[in-house]
C-alpha cells in the first residue's frame, strides 16, 4: 500500500503511539487503538522501536518533527527525558481525572500515566528440582550448595544488583539505596556457578524450554511463554522486582490533547482487563481485576499476591548511579 511510504505522517486526526511491538501491538490494537478510533474518529497508529527509545524522542522534540506523539516508556526513560535543562515530555495534567485518579500513586508521575507493570522473577525448571526442595527466594538462588543446578544471570547490572543484595540476605525494604560493594561481593560468590550470562529475553525463553538452564532470574513474560509452550517451568513471585510502563506525551506535539483523550480511554479498568485475553498484563487499575478471570489474574504482575512480596524498582537510584555501576559491572564480569 503506497500510503505506508508517504513521509512520516499526514496532517489530520491521527496520533502515533510508540509501544513495545509484538504481542503488545496486537493486544493494544484490539483493545485500545481500534476502539478509540471507533469512539472518537482519531486514528491511532502503533509503532515499534527499540527498547528505551529516548534518543528518538529527544531528536523528534529537538527537530520538532513529531513522528510519534506519545510513547509507552519506563520510569528510567522518563527520568532521562525530564531531568536535564530541557524537558522532552509534556506534563499530562490528568491527575484529577476520575479514571486516572483511581490508579495508585506508586504507578504515577507528572510525565507518565502508569499503564503496565513488568516484573523480574526467579524461574526454574520443575524437572530439575523433582523430588527436592525448589528455590523460593534470591537467597535460595545464591545457595549453590543446597540448590544445585545450572544457573543463568543477566549480563547487566539492572535487577542483578538488587538480586545480589537480596541473595546476600538484605531484606526487601532495605535494598535501596543499594550497597554496591556488598552487591558485588555477593555476585563474587555466585560468579563461578553461573553457566550462562544471558542478554535477551528470547534467549532465556529458549534456554528454559530446551532445559539448557535449570534456574535463572528473568522477566516474567518469558517463563510464562515457556509454560505456554509446555515446558515444565515454575515462577517464583516472591521478591519479584517490578517497574512501571507509562503513557507519556512528547513535549510540543500538536496532538497533545488527542493523546490525553487516548490515555484516559486506555486507562479504563474494563479495557485494561481485556488485555489479559492476550497476555498476563501488569494492570495498573486495581479495579480491573474485577473483570479478569481468577486463573488469569494470578499470572499478572500486579495481582495483589504477586506484587505484595515484591520490590519496586527505584528509578532515581539508578538514574543517579547507573553510569558507575554499569562500568563496574562490566569490569567485574571480565575479571
Amino acid at each position, binding site marked *: *500500500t503506497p500510503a*505506508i*511510504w*508517504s*513521509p*512520516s*505522517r499526514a496532517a489530520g486526526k491521527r496520533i*502515533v503511539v*510508540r509501544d*513495545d*511491538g*509484538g*504481542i503488545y501491538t496486537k493486544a493494544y490494537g484490539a483493545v485500545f487503538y481500534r476502539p478509540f478510533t471507533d469512539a472518537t474518529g482519531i486514528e491511532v*497508529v502503533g*509503532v*515499534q*522501536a*527499540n*527498547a528505551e527509545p*529516548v*534518543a*528518538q524522542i*529527544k531528536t*523528534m522534540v*529537538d*527537530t520538532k*518533527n513529531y*513522528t*510519534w506523539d506519545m510513547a509507552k516508556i519506563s520510569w*528510567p526513560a522518563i527520568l532521562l527525558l525530564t531531568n536535564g*535543562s530541557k524537558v522532552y515530555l509534556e506534563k499530562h495534567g490528568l491527575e484529577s481525572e476520575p479514571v486516572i485518579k483511581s490508579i495508585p500513586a506508586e504507578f504515577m508521575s507528572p510525565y507518565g500515566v502508569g499503564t503496565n507493570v513488568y516484573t523480574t522473577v526467579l524461574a526454574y525448571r520443575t524437572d530439575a528440582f523433582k523430588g527436592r526442595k525448589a528455590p523460593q527466594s534470591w537467597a535460595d538462588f545464591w545457595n549453590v550448595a543446597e540448590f544445585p543446578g545450572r544457573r543463568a544471570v543477566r*549480563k547487566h547490572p539492572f535487577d542483578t544488583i538488587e538480586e545480589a543484595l537480596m541473595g546476600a540476605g538484605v531484606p526487601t525494604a532495605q535494598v535501596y539505596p543499594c550497597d554496591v560493594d556488598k552487591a558485588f561481593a555477593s555476585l563474587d560468590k555466585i560468579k563461578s556457578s*553461573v*553457566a*550462562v*550470562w544471558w*542478554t*535477551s*529475553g*528470547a*534467549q532465556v*525463553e*529458549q*534456554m528454559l*524450554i*530446551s*532445559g*539448557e538452564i535449570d534456574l535463572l532470574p528473568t522477566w516474567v*513474560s518469558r517463563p510464562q*511463554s515457556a509454560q505456554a*509452550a*509446555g515446558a515444565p517451568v515454575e515462577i517464583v513471585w516472591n521478591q519479584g522486582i517490578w517497574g512501571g510502563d507509562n503513557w507519556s506525551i512528547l513535549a510540543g506535539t500538536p496532538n497533545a490533547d488527542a493523546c490525553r483523550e487516548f490515555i484516559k480511554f486506555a486507562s479504563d479498568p474494563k479495557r485494561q482487563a481485556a488485555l489479559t485475553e492476550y497476555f498476563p498484563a501488569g494492570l495498573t487499575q486495581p479495579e480491573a481485576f474485577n473483570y479478569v478471570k481468577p486463573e488469569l489474574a494470578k499470572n499478572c504482575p500486579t495481582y495483589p499476591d504477586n506484587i505484595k512480596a515484591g520490590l519496586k524498582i527505584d528509578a532515581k537510584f539508578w538514574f543517579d548511579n*547507573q*553510569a558507575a555501576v*554499569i*562500568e563496574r559491572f*562490566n*569490569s567485574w*564480569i*571480565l575479571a
Partner: protein
Amino acid sequence: MALAKAPAIEPGQLRTTARSRARSQAWTWAAMGGPLVLLLVFFLVYPVGQLLLLSIYNDSGFTLAPYRQLFASAVYIDVLLITLKISLATTLVCVVVGYPIAYLISVVGKDRKATLLFWVLLSFWTSFLVRAFAWIVLLGRNGVINKLLLSLGIISSPASLLFNFGSVLVGMVNALLPLAVLTMLSVMENIDRNLPRAAATLGARPGMAFWKIYFPLSLPGVAAAGIMVFVTAIGFFIVPALLGGRRETMITQLIIDQVQQTLNWGFAGAISVLLLIVVLIVFVAYDRLLGLSTMTGAAAPRRAAPSRLADPVQKIGDAVLTLLGMISDRIILALPSRRRDRNPEQAGLGLQAFVWTMLIIISAPTILMIPLSFGTGGLNWPPQGFTLHWYETVLHSPVWTQAFLRSLLVGLGTGGLAMLIGTPAAFLLVRSNVPGKAAWLAFILSPIVVPRMIIAVGMFYVFARMGLVGSAFGLILGHTVVAVPYVVMTMMAVLRNYDTRLDHAAQSLGARPFATLRHITFPILGAGMFSSFLFAFATSFDELTIALFATGGLNATLPKQFWDEVTLQVSPVIAAVSTCLFIFMGLLIFVAERLRRRAAAR
C-alpha cells in the same frame, strides 16, 4: 599542401590545453567521486561528527572528561581487546575457510558454479537473529550436536559447546563467510589460469605454484575480504551477546548501553572515537604489511622510490610464501598417492570434500529451520509433532508479506543506489592518480566502522529535519551509507586484475566511455558487480538498527519483524518465515538457471 593549412601551435596554447586537461580531469574526479563524498558527508560525517563532538563539548564548553573516564578504568581497553580478538579470529577463519570455497567456485564449470553459489548465499536469506537462535539450538546442551554425539556414544555427558569464544566464532563466521567468499571469488575469476600452469612447467609443485603464483595474484581479493570482514565483525554485537559467555563482550555493546540506558552521548562518543582510532591503526598497520595500495592500484611507481620498509617486508613475505609452498608440498607428498589418471584441469577430491563440509556447516542454521518450522515444540531439538500452523500464521498475516516486500524493495533500491554511487568511486580510486588514496579508502570504510547505533541516531536527526523519517527513500539512503563501502571495496579488488587494454581496444573501436563500460568492462567484471550488488542488497536485507530509527517504527522491514517476533515470545513462526525465504530463493535461482540454460542452448 596540408602543411600550410596546419594550425600553428604556440607554446602558450600548449600550456592552456594542459591546464584545461587538468581542469577537465578535476571535473571527472568530482563527477565520479562526488556523489559518494556527498552521501557520506551529509548522512555520516555531519550527523555522526556532531555526536562525536559531544565527547569534547558539553554544556560548559570544551572538556576531556569523557576521555579521562575512558582511561580511568581498564574495562574499555579490555573490551576493546576482546573485540579485536574476536574480530581478528573471525577474519582469519573467514579468509582461510572462504578461500578454498571461492577457489573451487572459480574453477568449476558454469552449472556447478550456480549450485555452489546457491549454498554460499543460502545463509544470506536467513535473518542473523534466526541464525543465532539456530546455533543455540544446534550447539546447546540438549541441542542437535550433543544429542547426536550422545546417541553415538562418543560422549557420555553433554559437552559445553555454547556460550564461549568458540560458539561466538562459529556464529560470526557463519554470518561473514559469504562476504569473504564472494569478495575473493570476484578477484579469482579474473586470474589467468595459464600462470599456475606455467609455474608447474618451471618445476613448481602444486603447493609452490599455489603459494607463489596463484596466491599473490589473488591477494587483492584476500586483502579486500580481510579488511571488510574485520571491519564488519567489529560492529557485531548481537551474535556475540547471544552466543558468547561471560567474557565475550563487544565494544559496540558498551556504546549502545551508553546511548540507550544512560543517554551519555559524550561518553558514547569517546568510546566510538577510541574504536575509530584503533581501527585506523589496524588499517595503517595492514596497509604497511599487506599494502592497501595493492588494492588501489598504486603499485606501479614503487620502483622509482623503493621505500626502505617495503623491501624487507616484501622479502619476508616472499620467504613466508616459499615456506608455505614447501610445507604444502610435503603434505601433499605425504598424502596417499592420488589417482594416476587424474585430469590436471579438475579440482581435487580433498578440496571438494572440504568445501562441501564447510558449506553444509554454514547452511546448517538455515536447514535446521525447516524441520523446526513444522513442529509444535518451539525452537527445540528434536522437533515435536507436525503442524502447518506456523505457515498459516505467516501466510495469513499481512505484516510478514508486507515486511518481506518492503525489505525486498529497500534492498533492491539500496543495491542499485550503492552500485550507482560506489562503482564510479572504485574506478576513480583504482584508475586515476587522485592523491591520498589510503585516506580516501579509510573514509569510505568508515560507515562500517562507526557503530551502527551512532549512525542510526545521527541519521535519524538529519532525517527528522528533512522529513525523511518513515519514508522508503530515507531508509534506502540510510542503508546505502552502510552498504556502499562493500561495493567500493569489492569493485576495487576486481578492478585490480582487470586488463585495461580491453577498454582501450573498445575505445579504439568507437565505443564511448559509457558504451565501453556497458559492453566490455561491466560484463567482464560481472562476477564482481554481482557480488557488490549482493552485498549491498544483503546488508540492507538484514539491517536492523538503522531500519528501526529511520522508519521511526512506522514501516517494518523483515529484520525488524523478526526482531519484533522474538521480543516477547519465541515461536517457530520465524522458522516458517526462514523456510519460506529459503524456498523462494531456491525457486528463483532454479528458474534463473533454467532460463540461462535455455538461452545458452539456443
